[in-house]
């Protein structure tokens, strides 16, 4: 049997189900029920990575989420790579492939190790700030080196083949943690009939009970756990979520749970199954029963593989049947870790000694140790560890009564494993996510959750009661409290009997002193993942970083994927001592989501690929696809961009579409334009207040163009609004601005002018809108309607109701091309029918479909603006030369009137929109190009405005452009120069933006 550390019996593993796995390219065996960590320890794998800064060999320290070192790269294929997986939380499955995330070129022989060794002095805290930031230009080079050398895994280079799920949940009580406290709380609430979610990060419920040999009701604890779990599973409104980490506790009792559905089954999820699920939970009440993490003590060379947390050693023995070594030394400040020595001895291996920092520990555990013949060394501590890739021995010295100094000679003992306990830290992370500051408790010697505004209760070890009996009672009580708050029954559940144990008082000690002062002693690690030492924290304090938040950022204490779960408290204690303060005076940094890393896949869910963002389609979309359109995104809309014919370049398509429209007739799907139906007797007044121009006299049957400004007087949208009835208008907006304009109208109506009798309704999707434009558009329309559409009966800027191709329609004579145009609106269910009929009749007029690009060119030939392209939030109507669209005479003010009268808005030399004609007519200026008046001016040249729209005009035979130019409206005929990135300087003359048909005769026929 190659699993040299595996026990023959015991534990919650299935020895009849062997599983093979790969670590760093080698095959190993483990059993069903193992974690990757327990299987590695069973196989005697000591070094599982290299440390971040000093590149020291590191081993497994813990057995749960707090593990700082065993952060692995997982994945059998490139596509299934997952970085940052804690081996202690990854269940073993057949064929699992893992590797160390850091260690270059390998964990056993690491080049950086040499740097690390000489780097003891070279790499003090703040190292990156002090060294690598200067010179700034070298940072990228340093960064690559550091990343490669340290690294915490690599992301896959191929697409993730798995699918992920996101789901919303609601409950009365969310219980976090299914240890004794959580189970008791859930059972109580469940029996009351509450909707309960019970989530636990482990593969099975039981929490602390899983790693001990404690009994409940005189039987193994698993029995009670199984009974409670079975009862809960039978309740209709109880949801049990194992393998589910509650990662974030957000405001208003919104919590996120990361459930791993198949990570324990295979490298890739079985077909049809989501690999992980992110639950988004709204809980009326939350019970945090998150337990506690045991704190390791800080001592010399405490990072050598073989140095572990005492309770983790017990867990490996009791839960996984793995003894992670042969000769154990225990160092403890409390009674708890004695059990680890007993577990070790019962597993048949040698306990070298228990080193107790207390001067005179008494009680049952001490008696038991004595009975078992275990050497007990009182009032002492392990000050140093020998060994590099595995512990080979320990140095032990007597300590002063308060533990602050060594006061005896040093004894050396041979050992390969050191298990330490410095007490327990309640797992308060979630409790702090919403901003509640933890509170130090002397008796617990740890931080407890502080007061909160959330509807949150705590129970068990998180509340500072580390006994099983206390956890059970507090859990049940929290369940009843939640039920009482919810107005439900408060059932009393029968609690199992526990084993009582009278404990000798623990000693509050975090940092074991050395004979040398800390700065000269062997490295004493506080935060393994970030290589933060006790000496480093003291140095930071000496250098003036006194606030714990500054110490954190300067030393990196508590950063990383483990977020300082093990080291934070010891680090704060050391900082407190160094600055002569108490721990509560020093305070703690605050925890943020997420508790453990969450995959991007789980956060994304199915919102990727085709479903990344909604794609909005018009009723004619299928026709556009079938007729070869290329599409452009306009907001979420897919609008035809242009319709290339075989062999055409884009410019050739545009030239053809532009000419066909001006010479005969073109058609545009304008359905995406925002449309807002406005009804009420004050509709007209309301329009006058939100548009800059006048609406009082617009007659029924007429249409008018309007500009809409923000309070600052800057244009934010435009469009045509038509008077359908005396109290009835339809407003059009830009395609991308529709929702914003609708909200704008509602905002002003609801908050400023509720007395106006008006209602708004969005009807964008209701109407299919098709614009036929060009000299033959009337002839085409006449073929499909009986209505009189002559200029005499149906003039420019009028609208009429008529049937088009048998479909009732509203037709508007408005034009964005400057040509004779008819905008046909029909209920969208009949849109494609009408569109196809237009093409049936349009063939003889060469009816040509065009997209947004030709629309842009045709309107630019006419100098019509596009809000959002020719405006950018800093342009008012006068800047656009559109003062004609502003009525200063309206009895009531309008939005933007005062804004555009501000001193800055009426000064000279503002950037103004003008036309620009390049001296070389073949050159098309790039949009965004910056202009200057003097191309020979020294750099940086004074910039005078940029090109907003620029095209080749096939109809005019030269390029056309619009742009903002300082004082442009007063500079007609002057030259502007555009120095381009490729070195060219393009000369252009300022002109009117109306390049074609300045009198507007074409649209008015």
């Amino acid at each position, binding site marked *: 049997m190659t699993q040299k550390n595996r026990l023959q019996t015991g534990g919650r593993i299935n020895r009849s189900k062997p599983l093979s796995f790969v670590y760093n390219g080698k095959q190993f065996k483990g059993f069903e029920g193992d974690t990757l960590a327990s299987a590695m320890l069973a196989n005697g794998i000591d070094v599982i990575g290299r440390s971040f800064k000093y590149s020291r060999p590191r081993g497994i320290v813990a057995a749960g989420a707090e593990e700082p070192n065993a952060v692995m790269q997982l994945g059998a294929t490139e596509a299934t790579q997952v970085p940052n997986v804690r081996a202690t939380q990854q269940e073993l499955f057949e064929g699992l492939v893992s590797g160390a995330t850091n260690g270059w070129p390998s964990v056993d022989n690491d080049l950086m190790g040499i740097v690390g060794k000489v780097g003891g002095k070279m790499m003090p805290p703040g190292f990156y700030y002090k060294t690598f930031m200067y010179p700034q230009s070298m940072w990228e080079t340093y960064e690559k080196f550091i990343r490669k050398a340290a690294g915490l895994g690599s992301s896959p280079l191929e697409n993730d083949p798995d699918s992920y799920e996101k789901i*919303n949940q609601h409950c009365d009580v969310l219980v976090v943690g299914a240890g004794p406290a959580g189970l008791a709380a859930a059972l109580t609430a469940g029996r009351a009939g509450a909707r309960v979610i019970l989530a636990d990060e482990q593969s099975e419920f039981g929490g602390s009970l899983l790693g001990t040999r404690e009994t409940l009701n005189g039987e193994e604890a698993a029995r009670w756990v199984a009974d409670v779990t079975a009862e809960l599973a039978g309740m209709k409104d109880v949801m049990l979520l194992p393998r589910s980490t509650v990662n974030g506790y957000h405001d208003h009792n919104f919590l996120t749970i990361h459930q791993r559905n198949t990570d324990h089954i295979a490298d890739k999820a079985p077909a049809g199954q989501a690999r992980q699920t992110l639950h988004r939970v709204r809980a009326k009440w939350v019970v945090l029963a998150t337990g506690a993490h045991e704190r390791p003590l800080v001592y010399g060379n405490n990072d050598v593989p073989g140095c572990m947390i005492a309770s983790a050693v017990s867990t490996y023995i009791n839960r996984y049947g793995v003894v992670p070594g042969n000769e154990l030394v225990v160092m403890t400040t409390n009674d708890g870790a004695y059990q680890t020595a007993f577990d070790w001895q019962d597993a048949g291996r040698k306990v070298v000694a228990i080193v107790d920092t207390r001067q005179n520990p008494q009680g049952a555990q001490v008696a038991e140790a004595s009975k078992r013949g275990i050497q007990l060394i009182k009032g002492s501590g392990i000050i140093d560890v020998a060994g590099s890739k595995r512990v080979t021995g320990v140095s032990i010295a007597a300590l002063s009564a308060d533990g602050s100094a060594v006061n005896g000679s040093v004894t050396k003992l041979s050992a390969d494993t050191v298990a330490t306990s410095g007490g327990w830290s309640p797992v308060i992370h979630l409790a702090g996510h919403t901003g509640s500051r933890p509170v130090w408790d002397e008796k617990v010697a740890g931080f407890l959750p502080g007061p909160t505004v959330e509807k949150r209760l705590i129970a068990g070890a998180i509340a500072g009661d580390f006994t099983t009996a206390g956890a059970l009672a507090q859990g049940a009580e929290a369940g009843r409290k939640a039920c009482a708050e919810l107005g439900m029954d408060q059932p009393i559940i029968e609690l199992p009997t526990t084993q009582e144990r009278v404990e000798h008082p623990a000693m509050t000690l975090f940092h074991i002193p050395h004979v040398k002062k800390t700065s000269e002693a062997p490295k004493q690690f506080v935060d393994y993942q970030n290589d933060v030492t006790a000496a480093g924290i003291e140095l930071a304090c000496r250098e003036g970083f006194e606030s714990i938040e500054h110490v954190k950022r300067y030393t990196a204490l508590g950063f990383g994927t483990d977020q300082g779960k093990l080291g934070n408290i010891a680090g704060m204690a050391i900082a407190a001592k160094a600055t002569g303060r108490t721990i509560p005076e020093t305070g703690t940094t605050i925890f943020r989501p997420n508790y453990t890393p969450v995959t991007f896949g789980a956060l994304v869910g*199915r919102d990727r690929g*085709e*479903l990344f963002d909604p794609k909005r389609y018009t009723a004619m979309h299928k026709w556009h696809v079938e007729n070869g359109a290329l599409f452009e995104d306009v907001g979420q809309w897919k609008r035809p961009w242009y319709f290339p014919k075989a062999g055409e370049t884009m410019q050739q398509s545009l030239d053809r579409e532009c000419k066909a429209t001006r010479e005969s007739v073109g058609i545009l799907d304008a359905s995406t334009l925002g449309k807002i139906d406005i*009804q009420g007797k004050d509709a007209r007044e309301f329009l006058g207040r939100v548009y800059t121009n006048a609406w009082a006299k617009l007659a029924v049957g007429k249409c008018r163009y309007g500009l809409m400004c923000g309070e600052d007087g800057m244009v934010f949208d435009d469009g045509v609004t038509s008077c359908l009835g005396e109290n009835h208008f339809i407003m059009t907006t830009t395609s991308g601005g529709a929702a914003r304009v609708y909200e704008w109208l509602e905002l002003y109506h609801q908050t400023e002018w509720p007395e106006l*009798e008006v*209602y708004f309704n969005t009807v964008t999707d209701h109407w299919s809108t098709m614009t036929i434009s060009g000299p033959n558009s009337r002839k085409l329309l006449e073929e499909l309607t009986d209505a009189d559409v002559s200029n005499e009966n149906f003039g420019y800027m009028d609208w009429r109701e008529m049937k088009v191709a048998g479909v009732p329609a509203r037709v508007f004579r408005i034009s964005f091309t400057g040509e004779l145009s008819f905008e046909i609106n029909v*209920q969208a269910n009949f849109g494609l029918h009408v569109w196809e009929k237009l093409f049936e009749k349009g063939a003889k007029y060469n009816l040509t479909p065009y997209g947004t690009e030709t629309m842009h060119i045709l309107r630019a030939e006419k100098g019509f603006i596009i809000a959002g392209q020719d405006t950018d939030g800093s342009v008012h109507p006068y800047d656009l030369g559109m003062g004609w669209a502003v009525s200063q005479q309206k009895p009531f003010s309008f939005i933007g009137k005062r804004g555009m009268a501000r001193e800055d808005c009426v000064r000279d030399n503002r950037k103004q929109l003008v036309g620009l004609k390049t001296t070389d007519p073949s050159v098309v200026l790039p949009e965004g190009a910056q202009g200057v008046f003097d191309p020979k001016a020294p750099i940086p040249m004074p910039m005078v405005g940029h090109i907003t729209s620029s095209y080749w005009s096939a109809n005019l035979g030269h390029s056309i452009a619009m742009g903002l130019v300082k004082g442009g409206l007063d500079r007609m005929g002057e030259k502007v120069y555009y120095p381009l990135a490729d070195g060219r300087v393009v000369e252009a003359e300022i002109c009117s933006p109306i390049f074609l048909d300045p009198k507007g005769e074409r649209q008015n026929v």
Partner: protein
Amino acid sequence: MSDTKNVAIMNQVPDAAAGVRAESPLHHADLGTVAQKGLKSGGVHFREMGLLGHLTLRCDPKNADLIAAAAGVLGVELPLKPLTSVESGSTIVRWISPDEWLITVPNDQSFDLESRFRAEMSGHYSLVNGSGGMTLFKLSGDRVVDMLKKATPVDLHDSEFPVGKVVSTVFAKSGAIIRRTGATEFELVVRRSFADYLWLWIQSASQEFGLVVEA
């Protein structure tokens, strides 16, 4: 007083004789074929109820005259309690917001209804035909709640979301008006331009339960 002279209303539905083809927002998805070729049993059932008449009424719920007039036209009282609906024959009235209701009827009845409102109800209100811009999805099946939970943050538990309840809410990255019509039956009113996105989304989210398309 008739309101017709101040507001433009139009029968937007062509005469049957005109032979005009109508296409619902999911017409392109050819659900008839999908229904024939697809699963016959599964946890989620889907059907598009296209080409209904959708009318949005907005008025002041505190104005007893308006509320009475609306009830007279509709034949049922407007639901004034938030998030509720009433149903009478093929007419369904959904509370949307404190001054807004969505009425669905067969599309060929929408102009009649609109005309009767304008003839019989005076005062300040708006009535807008949005039939071309909406469609209705019927979703049902044993797992329909599990599927819907993926898309909407609203609590669908029967204690919070009984039959008849209506909410206008987030659905995936779009929106929907969700109404419960039975223990395992819901209807969603969605906008035309988003219909294809939502149909793709529902297909994906229903895959694990088996999706039965009806037509």
